[in-house]
């Protein structure tokens, strides 16, 4: 048998080679999918880890030592977690320097000398040695090699030798575990050895930080358990800790799932296509040697041998391709990974082996399946080359099954709205269904066209049409090309729409071309720094975030620069200038004054002689900080109250709020009239008329439980009348704008109130409804920065302060901001944001595109390969015409034309199936790494983006048709 099998393979070595190559492709795809997935997942993981905030990469824990406890000894056991670095530290707050001591932090941290960038001298390695940050030598009045005294509160000074200076650490370095105190932003940090520090008495802070390496996130499933174990150990040691590592782990897992889905969507069809092409090749080969099979049947060859011999002829090249396919898949994927995922490592794992085995098994089954028909055909049928009578029924059953599968997959993908289950295979299932439909229709249409062409005397077209209608195997080719073009259309459309979605979301969510994230800044500081860095208002804009009860995404922007700096969303629906005008209808006003002392003239009238009030004046200094000037002891009758206001001179302060406070528990009725506010020289800062203008003041909304006093402007000043038995809210805030706070929203304003600093609820009004706002897209709201500060922020530290920079901002814009006093902790661009949100889907879509291109190539190569099995002329009758004198060239043209028509018709059907799949199942491919559904990707692709690849694929396919026609012609000539 072996001899005969070898003779069969040798005789049909071209077929064996094709089988070998197709199996190789299937095995390579099966092996490459998991390898690519693993490499892409690794790249994605590293990317996500690199982009994650430090808080998500560390576990921090700390405990205060008791005051009398010398920091003599560290915890006996520190937690150890695989792939996490345990950093032990000790910090002691105190003062450094001589006569004019400055607040400073004395810190020891394990491994600090490896992390510090020493700019002069060396690191502290011995007892009583210290290194200082750059610039601290001057500040502390010490020189390198000199001695610096450090004293803890209540302790004696300890002298340290300054042995070096270091560059301020990078906040993004996870080693510092996001411990701001160690970064030296507020005060210099003296790094010493832990032995030096343990010698101190006083209350110190002991810290344990677990700094995760990227490998720690390789097994996200076990991450939570490992973290919990560490927490247990820390809690047992008296530490309180926290971490956001599980959040990052969850994101990584989510990204990995997305990637897996996308790779599945791409790889499974490729394997199916390889199987299908293999099936076609084997079926064509079986058809070619039906007489041979008939001969074996004629000799009464036992059934097992009748199966084994032709199956062996397929199985040998299939099995021979398994290992090379595995290696080729690995090598090709490694090369691809090297190009598209630089830095990723490619590793073997059992998955590749399992998938390759599955692909090879599928190839064997496809080969076996292709022979079923022939082996069930009666002997005479085989000898006469007529088909199996049961084939039609089987084909119909298969078509019904595929149609049902496509319907189920399409429904699941459309109904479920996301990837998962059989929905993932919806594109390929729909392609198959459309292909089978096309295979049914094409011969009918071709015959009709042919008859019509013949009637009109266009006999070449007629012949081509009849050839198309009559050649057996046409249907299978239609299915193949339809599926391939279905996949191509789907992948190209997905890539185009996803790319545009990434662009738009990155543009909108970044807000501007570049964003500088600022730490700990007030609105005044931020505004003044931006003004200093960009006095011409060309490229920088101050931004902060606010939150409302039912409106969590409010972004406050400097509307005077909005149009110039921000990335205005295309879908906003209004021009940025118009929106700016609505958000800042008039210049916000503020009561500014300069004084060393505030003197308030006030008269209280009350029937209760025991009434005792306190007057509070809240002012905001030039640093943007809120200060409370309290003037107690206000009793019935005229009075002059005074408060120290040195912080308001020489830089002016802003009067933010005036508040009367009842110092008793009951609530008597009274009238208080504020006549004037003067400075220490008696100069009037606010006279009776100014104070009496009630439009200048805002009050919280009144309620039965919390009434507000009545305000009235009188010639004597501002009269505040409290006439209720319950405690009144007597806060009067300075009104920046007349009327409610203007806001641009993207949806209905659910609550007409926003809570300002101090808990005061203020009315807001929607002045514009936009399709999207910068940063938050279709779910956010927009405020003017200054108005928001005057009305809502009022001197508190800003939430998420940022400076947005336009594309034409100078390269040193961030340096300018730093020089203006801002602490810029991070900066990022639209491109970085795009890379961040697209990481997982992008990797998957690249794979899908590569697979689609490979599938097109496979189909194009498959055409001439299948033609090699075709009987010369097939059943089209063209060869007979050749014998009857029709020129060979004409027959070649007709043959190539019919094949091209088939390919193009099937390509059109494939694009139709892609459109159908896109309409039903586009959600199977995730668009954003974080699974965000706020930003909706465009539904329709750019025609040009799809047309280019499709045209190229058509050209490749036509080349395949032309080659196939030549193969058939050459074989005919050889036969003759």
């Amino acid at each position, binding site marked *: 048998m072996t*001899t*005969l099998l070898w*003779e*069969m393979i040798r005789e049909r070595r071209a077929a064996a080679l094709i089988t070998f190559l197709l199996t190789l492709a299937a095995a390579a795809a099966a092996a490459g999918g998991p390898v690519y997935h693993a490499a892409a997942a690794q790249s994605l993981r590293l990317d996500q880890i690199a982009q994650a905030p430090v808080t998500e990469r560390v576990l921090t824990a700390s405990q205060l030592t008791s005051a009398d406890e010398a920091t003599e000894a560290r915890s006996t056991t520190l937690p150890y977690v695989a792939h996490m670095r345990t950093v032990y530290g000790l910090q002691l707050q105190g003062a450094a320097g001589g006569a004019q001591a400055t607040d400073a932090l004395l810190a020891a941290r394990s491994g600090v000398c490896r992390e510090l960038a020493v700019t002069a001298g060396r690191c502290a390695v011995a007892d009583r040695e210290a290194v200082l940050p750059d610039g601290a030598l001057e500040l502390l009045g010490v020189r390198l090699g000199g001695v610096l005294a450090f004293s803890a509160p209540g302790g004696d000074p300890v002298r340290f030798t300054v042995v070096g200076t270091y560059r301020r650490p990078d906040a993004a370095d996870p080693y510092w575990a996001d411990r701001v105190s160690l970064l030296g932003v507020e005060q210099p940090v003296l790094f010493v050895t832990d032995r030096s520090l343990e010698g101190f008495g006083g209350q110190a802070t002991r810290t344990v930080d677990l700094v995760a390496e990227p490998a720690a996130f390789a097994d996200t499933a076990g991450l939570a358990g490992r973290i919990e174990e560490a927490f247990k150990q820390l809690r047992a040691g008296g530490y309180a800790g926290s971490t956001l590592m599980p959040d990052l782990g969850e994101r990584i897992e989510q990204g990995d799932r997305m990637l897996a889905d996308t790779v599945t969507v791409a790889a499974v069809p490729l394997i199916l296509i390889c199987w299908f092409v293999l099936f076609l090749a084997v079926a064509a080969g079986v058809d070619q040697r039906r007489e041979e099979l008939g*001969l074996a049947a004629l000799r009464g060859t*036992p059934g097992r041998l009748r199966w084994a011999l032709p199956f062996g002829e397929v199985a040998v090249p299939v099995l021979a391709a398994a290992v090379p396919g595995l290696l080729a898949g690995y090598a090709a994927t490694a090369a691809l990974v090297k190009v598209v995922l630089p830095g990723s490592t490619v590793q073997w794992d059992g998955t590749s082996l399992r998938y390759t085995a599955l692909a090879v098994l599928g190839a064997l089954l496809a080969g076996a399946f292709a022979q079923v028909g022939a082996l069930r055909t009666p002997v*005479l049928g085989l000898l006469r080359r007529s088909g199996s009578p049961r084939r039609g029924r089987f084909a119909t059953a298969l078509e019904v099954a595929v149609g049902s599968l496509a319907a189920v997959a399409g429904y699941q993908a459309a109904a479920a709205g996301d990837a998962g289950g059989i929905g993932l295979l919806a594109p390929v299932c729909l392609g198959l269904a459309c292909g089978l439909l096309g295979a049914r229709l094409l011969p009918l249409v071709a015959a009709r066209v042919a008859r019509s062409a013949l009637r009109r005397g266009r006999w070449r077209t007629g012949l081509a049409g009849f050839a198309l209608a009559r050649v057996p195997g046409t249907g299978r080719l239609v299915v193949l090309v339809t599926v391939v073009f279905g996949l191509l259309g789907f992948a190209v459309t997905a890539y185009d729409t996803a790319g545009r979605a990434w662009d738009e979301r990155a543009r909108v969510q970044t807000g501007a071309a570049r964003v500088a994230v600022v730490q700990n800044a007030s609105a005044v500081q931020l505004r003044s720094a931006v003004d200093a860095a960009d006095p011409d208002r060309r490229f920088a804009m101050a931004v902060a975030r606010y939150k409302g009860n039912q409106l969590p995404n409010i972004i406050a922007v400097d509307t005077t620069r909005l149009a110039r700096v921000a990335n205005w969303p295309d879908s906003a629906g209004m021009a940025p200038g118009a929106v700016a005008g609505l958000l800042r209808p008039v210049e916000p006003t503020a009561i500014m004054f300069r004084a060393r002392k505030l003197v308030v003239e006030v008269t209280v009238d009350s029937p209760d002689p025991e009434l005792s009030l306190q007057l509070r004046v809240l002012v905001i200094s030039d640093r943007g900080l809120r200060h409370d000037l309290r003037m107690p002891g206000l009793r019935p009758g005229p009075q002059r109250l005074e408060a120290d206001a040195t912080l308001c001179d020489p830089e002016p302060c802003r009067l933010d709020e005036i508040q009367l406070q009842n110092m008793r528990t009951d609530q008597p009725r009274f009238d208080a009239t504020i006549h004037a506010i003067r400075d220490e020289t008696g100069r009037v800062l606010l006279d009776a008329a100014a104070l009496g203008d009630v439009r200048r003041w805002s009050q919280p909304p009144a309620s039965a439980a919390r009434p507000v006093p009545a305000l009235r402007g009188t010639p004597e000043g501002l009269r505040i009348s409290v006439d209720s038995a319950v405690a009144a809210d007597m806060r009067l805030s300075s009104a920046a704008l007349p009327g409610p706070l203007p806001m641009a929203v993207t949806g209905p304003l659910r609550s007409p109130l926003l809570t300002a600093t101090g808990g005061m609820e203020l009315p807001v009004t929607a002045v514009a409804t936009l399709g999207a706002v910068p940063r938050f897209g279709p779910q956010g709201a927009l405020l003017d920065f200054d108005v928001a500060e005057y009305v809502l922020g009022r001197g508190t530290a800003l939430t998420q302060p940022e400076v947005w920079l336009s594309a034409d901002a100078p390269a040193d814009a961030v340096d300018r901001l730093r020089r203006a006093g801002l602490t810029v902790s991070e900066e990022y661009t639209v491109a970085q944001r795009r890379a961040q949100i697209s990481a997982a889907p992008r990797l998957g879509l690249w794979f899908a595109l590569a697979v689609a291109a490979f599938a097109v190539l496979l189909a194009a190569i498959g055409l001439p390969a299948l033609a090699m099995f075709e009987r010369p002329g097939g059943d089209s009758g063209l060869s007979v015409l050749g014998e009857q004198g029709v020129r060979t060239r004409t027959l070649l043209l007709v043959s190539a034309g019919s094949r091209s028509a088939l390919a193009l018709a099937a390509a059109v059907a494939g694009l139709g199936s892609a459109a159908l799949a896109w309409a039903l199942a586009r959600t199977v491919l995730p668009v954003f790494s974080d699974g965000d559904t706020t930003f909706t990707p465009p539904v329709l692709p750019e025609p040009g983006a799809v047309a280019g690849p499709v045209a190229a694929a058509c050209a490749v396919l036509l080349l395949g048709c032309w080659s196939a026609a030549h193969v058939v012609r050459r074989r005919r000539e050889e036969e003759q």
Partner: protein
Amino acid sequence: MTGLAVRCRRVLHIYRADGGDVVALSGVDLDIAAGEKLALVGPSGSGKSTLIALLSGLMRPSAGQVRIGPVDIGRVSDAELARMRGTDLGVVLQGARRNLLPYASVLSNIWLAQRRAAQVRPADVERPERILSLLGLVGMGHRRVRDLPPGAAQRVAIAVGVAASPGLLLIDEPTSRLDREARDEVLDALDTINRERGTTIVAVTHDPDVGARLGRAVTIRDGRVGAEGREGREFAVVASDGTVQLPPEVLENVPPGTLLVVEQGDGRLSLVIE
């Protein structure tokens, strides 16, 4: 295995076709003794090949009985037919290369043809070399079929047909497209097989010399047994329904509708035109 007798009784075969049914055999009665050599002759379309196909079990008769040895092959299962083709029946199709795997060696072809017999009755399976020797193909075992000259290829086809030591060898046009020398080689080979094994041989041929050489030639005409020649003499054959076909040359003088008087006496049967 010794030769198998063949018996056909009122064998009728109709080809079903969309354009109308075609009667290929319309009542064939034929008896072939075990170990006999017989040629089926007749014009194209007369039904010779259909009869061979029925005898080889490739088709089943529409009516009538075809018995090979003790087996009525119209009634046995497909599996049993397959077994018979692998053991009892040797079939050689017209055109030597249609019977052979052209790329395989002669030995491989014989090996394949012996598989069923080797499974069912291994004792009867002869060594390939012995078969090659029987057919004068010594030394050609390892040659590929496509490299053989036509006469040798035909003998190899016969070798494959008798590889399983069948009791009945059915052979279609054994000498067509062969030169005289090759034809003689083939006919010698058939003689040898018949002589040494007792195999019954039925050959379809257009060549009257082949019929003469085989000893008995049955002429099939219009789907019936029209005549039979034995040892140079031509006989009309009475069918089981009593019909007798007149020789074609007689029919030229006796147009359809002519009335004949049948006279019998002195061991003679005469047809007299009225």
